[in-house]
């Protein structure tokens, strides 16, 4: 009984005083290409160890060649998205595949936008 009244009171309070809005939460990816890139990254992370070990057998002059050919076939049998070569460093805000600065993970346009609005810490217009 007391708990019910307290809950009702809490609900009322929530309506009256809206909860403080936390920082922006990204619930969607910008486009499908970004989503695929995310999937590829996850897979590459999962298979990274295996790929490293099989490659260690392949790129070897000590072990017999038959073994190396076998391991070639094995690594080709792994899912295609597990190789890190397929990852593309896209812009985090706009998913632009080109013109992306690695340090900020942003494309050049977004970077300029934020820097001009003084939202990039330590970034200043160059003048010399």
């Amino acid at each position, binding site marked *: 009984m007391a708990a019910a009244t307290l809950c009702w009171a809490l609900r009322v309070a929530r309506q009256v005083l809206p909860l403080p809005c936390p920082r922006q939460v990204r619930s969607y990816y910008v486009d499908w290409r970004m989503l695929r890139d995310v999937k590829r990254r996850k897979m590459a992370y999962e298979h990274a*160890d295996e790929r490293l070990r099989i490659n260690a*057998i392949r790129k070897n002059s000590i*072990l017999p060649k*038959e*073994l190396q050919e076998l391991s070639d076939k094995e690594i080709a049998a792994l899912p295609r998205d597990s190789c890190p070569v397929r990852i593309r460093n896209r812009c985090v805000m706009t998913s632009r595949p080109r013109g992306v600065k690695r340090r900020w993970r942003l494309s050049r346009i977004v970077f300029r936008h934020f820097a001009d609005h003084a939202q990039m810490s330590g970034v200043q217009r160059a003048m010399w």
Partner: protein
Amino acid sequence: TSRVLSKDKDKSAASKDSTPEGAAKSQKGGAETPKQQLLDIIGSMRVEVSYRKKLQQLKASDNKKQAMNKLEGPQSEGSVPQGVTDDTQRGKPLNPELVKAASAVASSLPHNKKQTESELLAQLRRHEETTDKQKKGETINLRNVISEMTVKRHSPAQRGARLSGRISLQLDEDGQRIRPERSSAHSMDSRRYFCCFSFFVYRSLKVGKRLNIFTKASTEPEHALKTVSSPTIWDLEFAKEVAAVTAQPPRNGFEEMIQWTKEGILWEFPIDNEVGMEDDAEFHEHIFLEKHLEGFPKEGPIRHFMELVICGLSKNPYLSVTQKVEHIEWFQKYFEEKKELLQEI
């Protein structure tokens, strides 16, 4: 302090007459200035120190001479029979060894042997009285000494010792300022020293009257833990709601940063490089990995290959020991699967 010390040297000759009962003497000579009294006490304090050494020597010599000269009167000390008569007059016989020691000490001192001797013997008698009292009743325990000091009337000997103890505090540059303990220790030392000839038995700690400083801790029976079953869903929901309501938005940047740190967004400063990485393995477990190579054939290209692998792993600071072991085990499994193929070769 140098001035005081020089004055000490001047006065020590004069104040050597005043034996450990420096205070007693100061009581008698009330016309003395307080400064002189102080210096007397200092001198008496120093005299105590010298007494100790002499008594030590005397004890050693006495134990040697005892068999020889017990019946004979001591040769150089003609005042011993006088001392003995003094004691007998007072009605309490002192230890003959003590008497001998006192007379020897008195003779060694430059001034007024008879007076010093009588004073010494009086002091000894007083010490004997106190020790006897203590022997009868309780043990010579520090607690009892303190309690006795508070209860008893301050005897001049104790007062003198206490004063000397205080002055010794200032001079010795001791950090501790616990006065009663200090003085009691001092008086204990002097008393103990004079009574070293009379052996007393040290009894256990628990014997003796209680001081009632500490009250016995009442052993309350611990309240039986309320049997709480696993919290219900409603309880959890309630707790969540309460937390959500009470979480006010941060008033300033500091509170915001605190919130972020709690959530895990912000690192804790000063930055600890090994957060989340608890590798309790010793260095030898990282480097000496040959023991994991037991499943492999001892010769051949595979062994060569695995040794290279191990060499690389031992130089790797980023992996934990379990990860390295996993690495080696994966290779072992792999090679076992390919065994038929390998044997064809």
